[in-house]
């Protein structure tokens, strides 16, 4: 059975759902637990929303490539895009203990992923960003 899928989308918010659906369907076929599928959904949604909403200096169409693979004891999401270089793993952490009035939402999405995934690695080369997210997982 195939152990990886590749999905290519344009930089448009409504396209994110297609990626989440494809990853969820593929995960279910491979008996990945629903809890992990939820975490993958969140990771894909937050990262792609950031790239599409804030990553480009022009209004043009860009391509984002997502590769999802099942390794022996972990799952890996690799996202490759040509937006402005940005390392989400190095983003400042929000104050999650602030009172309601002082609470800011910026950076919360990345903070959630950092806490729910096991590893996030960013690299930038020749105008391309590569973000690799991994989640430990036992599946059969």
């Amino acid at each position, binding site marked *: 059975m195939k152990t990886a899928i590749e999905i290519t989308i344009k930089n448009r918010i409504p396209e994110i759902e297609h990626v989440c659906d494809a990853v969820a369907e593929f995960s279910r076929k491979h008996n990945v637990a*629903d809890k992990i599928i939820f975490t993958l959904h969140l990771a894909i949604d937050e990262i792609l929303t950031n790239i599409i909403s804030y990553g480009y200096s022009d209004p043009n169409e860009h391509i984002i490539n997502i590769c999802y693979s099942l390794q022996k004891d972990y799952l890996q999401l690799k996202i490759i895009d040509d937006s402005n270089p940005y390392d989400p793993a190095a983003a400042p952490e929000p104050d999650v203990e602030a009172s309601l009035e002082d609470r800011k939402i910026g950076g919360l999405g990345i903070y959630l992923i950092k806490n729910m995934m096991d590893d996030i690695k960013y690299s930038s080369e020749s105008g391309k960003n590569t973000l690799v997210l991994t989640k430990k997982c036992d599946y059969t």
Partner: protein
Amino acid sequence: MQVNIEKIENIYIFSLEGNLDSNTSGDLEKKLIPAIDPNNTKFILDFSALHYISSAGLRVLLGAAKKLNQFGGKLILCSVKPDIKEVFEIAGLLPIFPIVDDPEAAAQKILQ
């Protein structure tokens, strides 16, 4: 995502169905934020049919909580699935959003 809105006496109940994310949070924002005013300050959000929430959804809820705070209002969440509750927990939002088991418990709490 579907948003069903009911008003029973002076309590608004918003029932959310589907995914609350960057694609759908604008729709909730347009319905929820304008509904809050000095005469409408009690809100229950029923999450029993909500399957997913992202930071875009949290942003709208925080906006609602801040506006309600100005009027001394209350926002209670009910029937929240464990995966979604974990998102609130990690984001440190449990002290800001009271979560109860079901709509009846939410109605009781909001009238306290």
